[in-house]
C-alpha cells in the first residue's frame, strides 16, 4: 500500500500531536504520583514528630514527677541529717540508700522504655510488663496482665514499636488523668490479628478529650500498619481502649523471603 504525500503529511501531523499528548499525560501522572508521595512523607514526618514529642513529654513527666521528687526528698533528708549534731543513725542512712536506689531504678526503667531498640530486643511482652511495673510504682493502681497461651508471638519491629508506644501512651494517660485503682491489660490472638484491650475503672473521658492528639496519632500509626483503635468510655465509668493489628510476625516474613528465594515465585 502506497501512501500519498497528503496522507503521509497528515499521519505525521497526527502522530506528532499524539506524541505531545503522551508527554502531557506523562507529566500529569508524574506530578500526581509525586504529590501522593510528598503527602505520605509529610504524614510520616508528622507521625515521627508526634512520637518524638510524646516521648519527650513522657520523659519530662517521669523526670519531674518521679526522679525529681525522689531526689528532692533525698536532698531534704540529707540536709536534715547534716544539721544534726549527734551521730547519724544507721536506719536513716538505710532510708537514704533506699531512696537513691529508687531513683536509680526509675532512671533505668525510663531509659529502657524510651529506647525503641531496647523494646525490639526485649519484645512487646517484656516491655509491657516493664511499663506496668513503672505505673504500679508511681500510682495507686493494681494492674492485671493476661496474655495468650504461649505468650505474645514475635512481631514485625515496626508493629512492636507502634503497639508498645500505643500501650505506653494509654498507661501514661491512665496515670495522669484516670484516677483509676484497677487496670486490666488483655492481649489476645484473633486469627491473624493481635488485639490488646486496656481497661481501667477511673473517671472516664468525655468525647472531646477522647479525641485528643495522642489518640489521633495512635490511630494514624496503627492504620498505616492495617490496624485499628477503639475507645469506649463514659464519665465515671472507666475507659476501655481496644487496639488491633494484623499479625505478620518476623518468622513468617523470613519464611516468605526464604520461600521466594528457593522457588522464585509467590508462595502458593
Amino acid at each position: 500500500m502506497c501512501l500519498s504525500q497528503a496522507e503521509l503529511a497528515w499521519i505525521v501531523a497526527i502522530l506528532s500531536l499524539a506524541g505531545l499528548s503522551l508527554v502531557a499525560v506523562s507529566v500529569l501522572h508524574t506530578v500526581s504520583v509525586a504529590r501522593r508521595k510528598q503527602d505520605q512523607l509529610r504524614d510520616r514526618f508528622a507521625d515521627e514528630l508526634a512520637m518524638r514529642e510524646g516521648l519527650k513529654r513522657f520523659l519530662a513527666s517521669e523526670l519531674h514527677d518521679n526522679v525529681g521528687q525522689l531526689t528532692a526528698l533525698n536532698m531534704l533528708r540529707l540536709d536534715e541529717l547534716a544539721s544534726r549534731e549527734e551521730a547519724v543513725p544507721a536506719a536513716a542512712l538505710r532510708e537514704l540508700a533506699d531512696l537513691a536506689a529508687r531513683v536509680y531504678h526509675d532512671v533505668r526503667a525510663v531509659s529502657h522504655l524510651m529506647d525503641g531498640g531496647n523494646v525490639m530486643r526485649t519484645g512487646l511482652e517484656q516491655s509491657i510488663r516493664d511499663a506496668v511495673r513503672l505505673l504500679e510504682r508511681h500510682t495507686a493502681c493494681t494492674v492485671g496482665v493476661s496474655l495468650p497461651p504461649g505468650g505474645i508471638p514475635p512481631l514485625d519491629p515496626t508493629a512492636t514499636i507502634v503497639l508498645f508506644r500505643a500501650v505506653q501512651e494509654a498507661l501514661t494517660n491512665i496515670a495522669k488523668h484516670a484516677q483509676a485503682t484497677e487496670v486490666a491489660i488483655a492481649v489476645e490472638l484473633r486469627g491473624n490479628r493481635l488485639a490488646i484491650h486496656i481497661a481501667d475503672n477511673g473517671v472516664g473521658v468525655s468525647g472531646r478529650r477522647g479525641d485528643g492528639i495522642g489518640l489521633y496519632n495512635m490511630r494514624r500509626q496503627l492504620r498505616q500498619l492495617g490496624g485499628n483503635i477503639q475507645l469506649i468510655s463514659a464519665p465515671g465509668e472507666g475507659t476501655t481502649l481496644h487496639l488491633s493489628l494484623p499479625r505478620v510476625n518476623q518468622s513468617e516474613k523470613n519464611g516468605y523471603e526464604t520461600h521466594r528465594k528457593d522457588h522464585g515465585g509467590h508462595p502458593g
Partner: protein
Amino acid sequence: MPNMIYLYSEAACLLMALVFLRRAPRHWRLLRPYLALVVAVEALGGVLAMGGKANHHLHNALLLVEGFVVAMVLYVLLRPYAPGRRLTVIWQGWLTAFLALYGVELIWLNHGRAFNTKTYSALALSVPWAAFYYNVRFAASPPAGTPWRDAALWWVNGTSAFYIGTLLVHLILPNLVHQPVRVWGLPLHFLVINANIVVLYGTWSYAFLCVYRRLN
C-alpha cells in the same frame, strides 16, 4: 509574519533566559549562549533560505552544539537521582557515540550536502528515554516544593515533547518538502515543527521562571 513564529518563540525564550537565569546555577546559564546561538542560526538560516541558498551547514553545526548542551543539562538534572559512576559512564559513552555518528554521517553518508537526519534521530530517540527515567525517579522521590513549579520537570519534558513531536517530520522531511500539503496557506510539516517549537520554548521559558522563583 506567521511563518516566523519559531524565531519569535526562540527570541522570547532567549529574553526569558537572559532575565531569569542571571544568578542561576551554571547548567541553567549554559542555555543562554545556546539560545543566542539558536536565534542567530535560525535568523541567518531564514535569510539564506529566502535567498534560495542551502542552510543545512548551519543546522548541522547547531546540531553538534545542541547534542552537547541537551546531554549536558540532562546529565546535571539526572545526577541527584543517579549517584555513582553509572550515569557518568552512560553520558560519556552517549557523547562519544553521538560524535562518532555525527562525523560518519557528515563525512561519509551526506558528504556535507544535507542535514544530519540520522544524528538528529539518535538525539531525538535518546531524550525521551532520559525524560522517562527522570519522571520515574522524580515521582519516586520528589524534591521539596510544589511539583508543578519544578523547573527541571518542565525542561526535561518540554525537550522530550519536542523531540518526540519532530522526529517523524525530520525523517520524512525531504518527501514533504517537494509537494507540501498546505493548511491555512502554510505547509503542514512547517506547522507541526512550529507547534513543537512553541511547546519547547514555552516549557523552557516557564522552567526559567521556576528557576528564578526558587532563587528569589
